[in-house]
């Protein structure tokens, strides 16, 4: 790719934003343009998730933008956070647009909650009724009570435990290593929702089980707010302030049974398609060992060990050793989710995951990895990206 992320904008993370998703989106977009040193009228492209309630037309009308020459949407929500950047980059490289904003606005705590069955079920007399053709909560899985993404993640977790023969204690230490390390990062991040709440490994172990084998601390935070980022060509980025971070490679993948919820994928303990890592790093001209910091979309903590193995940062089955010994922590071989992640910073559906990669390469993370030149971002292997210092 020959594009750069040149601006980030966001609202606060909160449990109740007190304003509409449209207003949140607009605040984030204006913030991102200001951060980039661009005018609002420079926007000529928008990308968003199909799941976002705020349409491109709503943004154009609200801002009175002269026109858009490109807009695009990606399916399956945060699964495609890096795919949306790939789409924006492809549009720029094809000459369809010059300045593309990727935005996400959601009142996912005070409004419709991803962690609740009400999102996918209708109450009809003594029954709850599903009309969903695809997971989560579809007509084949809902009757067994499989309704929300966090329950699917418990299935991946048990599959992983079974495949590698991990006992409960080693498994707990592995995921505890994710949750506790990320909370410590969040404690140093003033933006984080849980910046003032400490978490010890003993606290983690004592955490309430939500869907066994996952505990409350393994789950991301349902959050209100919005985030936006500005993407332009590398050439244009060089003319702007020094905040640009280059998109070295970005891609998205579907394989049979994979998205949206991997229920029917051949493997449930490994979620990236064969060859995804080689393709991504090959396009970036790097290898996994060249990556300085990783941002892994952690809807649950279980996504971290799986992604580390799927992309070759560690060997298959090595995640328990790596994570229980602080490999993801400050000074570890690969610091992961230095903002605190979706577990402890907040949930802007993957955009804050990307943003922390950008901040690390700008050198302004609250948990800065000294000299970071390259960052890796992924969601479950369904989309992934390599960023490089400009």
């Amino acid at each position, binding site marked *: 790719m020959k594009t750069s992320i040149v601006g980030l904008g966001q609202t606060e993370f909160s449990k109740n934003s007190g304003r509409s998703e449209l207003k949140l989106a607009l605040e984030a977009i204006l913030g991102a343009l200001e951060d980039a040193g661009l005018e609002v009228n420079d926007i000529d492209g928008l990308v968003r998730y199909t799941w976002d309630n705020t349409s491109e037309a709503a943004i154009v009308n609200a801002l009175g933008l002269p026109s858009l020459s490109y807009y695009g949407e990606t399916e399956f929500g945060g699964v495609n956070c890096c795919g949306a950047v790939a789409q924006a980059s492809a549009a720029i490289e094809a000459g369809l647009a010059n300045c593309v904003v990727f935005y996400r606005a959601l009142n996912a705590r005070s409004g419709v909650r991803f962690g609740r069955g009400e999102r996918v079920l209708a109450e009809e007399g003594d029954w709850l009724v599903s009309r969903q053709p695809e997971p989560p909560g579809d007509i084949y899985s809902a009757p*067994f009570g499989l309704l929300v993404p966090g329950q699917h993640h418990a299935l991946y977790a048990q599959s992983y435990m079974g495949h590698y023969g991990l006992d409960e204690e080693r498994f707990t230490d592995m995921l505890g290593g994710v949750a506790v390390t990320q909370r410590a990062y969040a404690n140093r991040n003033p933006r984080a929702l849980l910046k003032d709440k400490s978490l010890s490994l003993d606290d983690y172990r004592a955490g309430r089980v939500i869907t066994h084998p996952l505990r409350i601390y393994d789950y991301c935070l349902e959050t209100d707010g919005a985030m936006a980022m500005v993407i332009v060509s590398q050439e244009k980025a060089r003319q702007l302030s020094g905040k640009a971070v280059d998109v070295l490679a970005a891609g998205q993948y579907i394989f049979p049974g994979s998205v949206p919820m991997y229920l029917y994928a051949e493997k449930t303990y490994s979620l990236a398609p064969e060859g995804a890592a080689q393709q991504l790093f090959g396009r970036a001209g790097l290898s996994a060992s060249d990556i300085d910091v990783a941002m892994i979309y952690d809807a649950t903590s279980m996504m971290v060990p799986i992604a580390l193995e799927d992309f070759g940062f560690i060997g298959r089955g090595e995640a328990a050793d790596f994570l229980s010994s602080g490999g993801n922590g400050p000074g570890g071989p690969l610091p992961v989710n230095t903002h605190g992640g979706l577990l402890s910073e907040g949930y802007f559906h993957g955009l804050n995951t990307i943003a922390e990669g950008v901040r690390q390469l700008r050198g302004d993370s609250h948990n800065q990895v000294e000299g970071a030149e390259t960052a890796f971002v992924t969601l479950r292997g369904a989309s992934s990206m390599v960023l490089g210092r400009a």
Partner: protein
Amino acid sequence: MTVIRPSDEYLEQPYYRHLAEGTLHLNCCNDCGAAHHPPSPICPKCRSFNTGWKPASGRATLNSFAEARHAVHPMLGPKVPYVITLVDLEEGVRLVSGIPEGMRFDLKVGMPLECKVIRFDEAFALPYFLPVGEGGA
């Protein structure tokens, strides 16, 4: 466990109609014989539209399981904890299933299972999978 059902238009489709009649049938290709799930108008192996339905053997292995302890809907409050399973059928397809209400088993990934269809009313039944010898098939 269930207080959740597919809407009537889905219960009228062959997959759920066969279950309501007491057996698990799988959507199969009449040309190459491959089974697939969820049902689809085309065979993903040979791309033939000539598909039909065949009874499943009911033999499966446990791919994964999870115990929901937190109720994600108020009507599930009396149902937790309940166990959700992923099962790999002998025919090469995966199904989401579960352990029927009131039963408890010591589950292990990879263990053999057999199907037990449980009917809730005339139109609606579900395929559960139990450890072999525990009352399935």
